[in-house]
């Protein structure tokens, strides 16, 4: 799990620098700081389980074993991208691994995950579906609809709300009423608020929820409280007239960085020492750079590749 979190961190840091260098065609929404949520959940999932994700979806994709090189190639819009350059950063998907995809519509993946959970229930093979969504999406009506129908039908669905403190550029407290985790109770859905920067707590909450879903006991709502270190979208300082949060606030939160906390825990339990952690970081950074470098000169998709995707 530590390696997977580090992989997500390094991959996203590379995307940040590629974006800054003006090398990426579209917009990029980074997951840095939220890695424990995706990894704590996906540690329990197999390829036969489904996830749906958000516009901030690289972390979920990588946590669910998505291919690193194919992700970089996709973000660069290349033919060897996981979606052939058709989707880009906001739509990385790999059905062979149950990754129904990142989604550019806030809350858009929730209905899809409920449908995948229905399919899993009909298949009767114990598979589950996880919908990752943000605090911003918790304001969408589909959350209520999904809680209601998944509770009624006991769907093997896990609703994971990643509350990172900001709904795009608005502080969550300005746009979201009450506690998100409290909403499940109204529908009879077991719900829990978790420190989303604590990998052990995330893993445990995920374990209980996924166990419940696999046993046929229906959905769970997990509110993972975390923090987004980067902006809503890379390059936002270029178009925002003023700051919506202070640098001091971001700095204060650095102490709760989930990777830093996990590393400290591993050291204190003598699982790894500082040098070993440094070595893992260096080694993963090198493999990330290798994958990212290889994607740079991949061919663009041929325009003829659109033809096979037409409805006719």
């Amino acid at each position, binding site marked *: 799990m530590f390696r997977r979190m580090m992989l997500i961190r390094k991959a996203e840091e590379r995307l940040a620098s590629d974006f800054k260098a003006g090398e990426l065609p579209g917009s990029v929404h980074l997951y840095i700081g939220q890695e424990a949520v995706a990894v704590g959940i996906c540690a329990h999932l197999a390829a036969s389980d489904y996830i*749906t994700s958000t516009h901030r979806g690289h972390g979920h994709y990588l946590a669910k074993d998505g291919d690193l090189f194919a992700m970089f190639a996709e973000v660069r819009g290349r033919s060897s991208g996981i979606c052939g350059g058709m989707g880009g950063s906001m739509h990385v998907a*790999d059905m062979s691994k149950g990754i129904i995809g990142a989604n550019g519509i806030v809350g858009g993946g929730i*209905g*899809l995950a*409920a*449908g995948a959970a229905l399919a899993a229930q*009909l298949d009767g093979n114990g598979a589950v579906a996880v919908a990752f969504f943000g605090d911003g999406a918790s304001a969408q009506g589909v959350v209520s609809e999904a809680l*209601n129908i998944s509770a009624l039908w006991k769907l093997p669905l896990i609703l994971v709300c990643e509350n990172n403190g900001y709904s795009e550029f608005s502080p969550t407290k300005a746009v979201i009423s009450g506690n998100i985790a409290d909403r499940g109770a109204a529908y009879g859905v077991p719900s829990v608020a978790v420190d989303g920067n604590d990998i052990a707590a995330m893993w445990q909450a995920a374990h209980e929820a996924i166990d419940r879903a696999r046993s046929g006991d229906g959905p769970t709502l997990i509110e993972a409280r975390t923090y987004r270190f980067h902006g809503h979208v890379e390059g936002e300082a270029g178009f925002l007239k003023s700051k919506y949060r202070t640098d001091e606030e971001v700095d204060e939160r650095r102490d709760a960085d989930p990777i830093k906390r996990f590393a400290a825990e591993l050291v204190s339990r003598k699982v790894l020492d500082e040098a070993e952690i440094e070595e893992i970081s260096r080694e993963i950074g090198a493999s990330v750079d290798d994958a990212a470098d290889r994607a740079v000169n991949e061919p663009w998709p041929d325009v003829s590749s659109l033809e096979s995707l037409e*409805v006719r």
Partner: protein
Amino acid sequence: MIHAINDALFEEMERDERVILFGEDVGTSIFGDTRGLQQKFGRERVRDTPISETVMAGMAVGAAAAGYRVICHLMYANFIYTAFDAIANQATKLRLMTNGQIRLPIVFMAVGGGGRSNSAQHSDYPHAALASLGGLYVVTPGNSGDAKGLLKSAIRCDDPVVFLQPASRGGEMGDVPDAETLIPLGKASVTKEGADVTLVAIAAMQRPALRAAAELAEEGIDVEVVDPRTVFPLDRATILDSLKKTGRLVVVDEARQAGSMANQIAAIAAGEGFRHLRARVTCITTRDLPIAYSPPLETAMIPDAARIADGIRTLMKERAA
């Protein structure tokens, strides 16, 4: 037409156990099209849902992505607007966005159109709006026989289909083909041959179109009636072949004129069919207003046989350019 649709659903659910159906009150079935399915195929495969179009349409996408053939019944066509996010932003997009990794065998069914004093929020026929989306077949039958064969093809299609049924034609009987008859999506039919003018009539407009054609035959005007059956992708060839023969085109569409299929077909005629045109193209559409409740108002808004016949008479009197 309802009995034909009901037949198609029974046959396809019988044929393929991965076909599932859900929607509001599909067990009770207010229109009768899903009647008996729950008793026959069980509550797992035929599910009554809460009144939650947003999540229903999203679930259709998720369940289809995960391997099922999903029929999502949205009841009245106006409720497609409530479900529109998942249709427009997910169902039509995923195949392209994932480079074909995800194929979505979904039929979104709904009953629409005027003629029954269902008033503004239960009388729209949104085929033209849906046809603008790109990744979605939009199928709408003009008679019972076509309804069955088209729906069976729609259920077997690997891409999303919206299947719109005209409410005003539900009780209509008519020949229904046997279980083996499939009508391909994207193919129009000529429902009456003629030599003087091509009358393209979509869905419920087939009936008044054929009435108008019969009336005009007595006056010596020989009308050819075409039913597109699928409005996206549109069978341009059948329409253009007919236009080549007659040189005149009238399109009757229950949509409001702004953004209608009538306009789209007129544009095709003005472009690809320009050299065949001997007269201006006439579009007969619903008035650009929400549908009114009171029967005389509603009747005046939606094209009928008299308006169609008048439109053709006027056109036939005009000298060729």
